[in-house]
């Protein structure tokens, strides 16, 4: 982490699921984390994590408060308008398990409510019932030489992805970690292990975003050349 990591604030969607585990991981990484239940709580965060949980349940919980939270998240991921002088840049979002389902453009055999921003097709519950849930040591080049302790709980896999999607890890059943620009997904749950590397990788994406944002602000403040 470089010197400005201490004032990073990451929101964790806290409608249902293991959001407390993500908050604990983020705090161990040395950044601030806050639970997000309402659209207005998305202001002043530098990135968002969508945790593990039950997607059908969470899809019923997105309409409380002053504005539907999914459209507010979508506006942060795919900003269309310009605010003030600077361009608004897409905010980094990391989805674990259920989070990957909400980010996916397509869910095999389902039309449930989702953000549909990442060019992936996911298959829910790809391994079968809980007795097929498992842990395994996964080699992930982006995280270094040491294998990552990946825990899959009634997990989805990515079965198809577009050209902009970078595959970071795949097993026989499908892709289990992928990135598209500022979006990161894992089918497994690093938040219930003691290994901080996936969260640190995401925080690296957040720092890139903050750097780009401050560059954009600086560029927009360059005075117009004065005509003589």
């Amino acid at each position: 982490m470089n010197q400005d990591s201490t004032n990073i604030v990451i929101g964790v969607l806290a409608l249902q699921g293991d959001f407390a585990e993500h908050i604990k991981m983020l705090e161990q990484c040395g950044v601030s984390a806050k639970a997000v239940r309402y659209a207005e709580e998305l202001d002043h965060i530098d990135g968002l994590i969508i945790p593990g949980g039950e997607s059908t349940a969470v899809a019923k919980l997105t309409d409380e408060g002053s504005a539907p939270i999914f459209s507010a998240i979508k506006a942060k991921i795919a900003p269309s308008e310009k605010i003030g002088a600077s361009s608004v840049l897409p905010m980094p979002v990391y989805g674990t398990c259920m989070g990957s389902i909400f980010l996916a453009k397509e869910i095999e055999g389902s039309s449930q409510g989702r953000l549909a921003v990442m060019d992936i097709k996911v298959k829910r519950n790809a391994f079968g019932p809980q007795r097929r849930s498992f842990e395994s040591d996964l080699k992930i080049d982006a995280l270094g030489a040491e294998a990552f302790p990946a825990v899959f709980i009634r997990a989805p896999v990515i079965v198809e992805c577009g050209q902009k999607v970078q595959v970071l890890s795949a097993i026989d059943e499908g892709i289990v970690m992928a990135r598209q620009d500022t979006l990161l997904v894992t089918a497994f749950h690093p938040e219930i292990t003691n290994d901080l590397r996936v969260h640190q990788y995401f925080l690296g994406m957040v720092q890139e975003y903050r750097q780009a944002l401050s560059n954009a602000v600086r560029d927009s403040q360059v005075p117009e050349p004065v005509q003589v």
Partner: protein
Amino acid sequence: MSTVIKPRTGTKLVKEALAQMLKGGVIMDVVNAEQAKIAEEAGAVAVMALERVPADIRADGGVARMSDPELIIQILESVSIPVMAKARIGHFVEAQILESLGVDCVDESEVLTPADEEFHIDKSQFTIPFVCGAKNLGEALRRIGEGAAMMRTKGEAGTGDVVEAVRHARTILGEIRRLHGMPKEELMSYAKNIGAPYDLVVKVAAEGKLPVVNFAAGGIATPADAALMMQLGVDGVFVGSGIFKSGNPMQRAQAIVKATTFYKDPEVLAKVSRNLGEAMVGRNCRDLAPSENLASRGW
């Protein structure tokens, strides 16, 4: 670039993680596929399959057992959320059958008639996780010592009276608060006095929380009941008879789901509590005969 992996199934971590994904959610009792679909549509994080809801078990009397496997299969085929099912205390063969059917979690439950009045199931032998009920910390740690991956209060199922769930949650959470930070030399006697495994007592003393997820159950009938339990400090709620014994199950189920997420927001609670129709009639726990007291089952 796909890798062949060596999957390790049924580990303690994998079993306890299922419960972690259910936190902040509502698990609803259902007796058939039609009720399971209503529960899923309303936003349940899981359904609990049983032969009769607790209020009917109380009314009908007789021996209450595991559901017909055919009904469990129909429920498994009708929803995508996790399916739990109840087995009798100590009835490890019912649990083996439930595991073979593909249920995601077994509830070794005092709501069914116990099959063994001395011993619980050795839950560590199973690939799927178990949830068990408890009235106090000693009982909770005995069940975790046997391999339970998730706990719940017992409350008094099928009454619609939340008083016992409140008592059990306050007892367990209060005991944890007192144990947290207790000097090490007092822990062995404390473990002896509450009848709990010493290593788990040491762990709770250090961490100030149960080592597994802890839900409320037994008598929750309204959105306010669910929010009360959440504010007391549980991780989620089970609702049994409270939904399908009420006048409008779908609307009440949706309201309890919202109340469990927005449990600290009285405006949302007021909004979802309006016009829910008849709550289950219920019975006061104080009026139960000793033989009707389900929470005393379990050892």
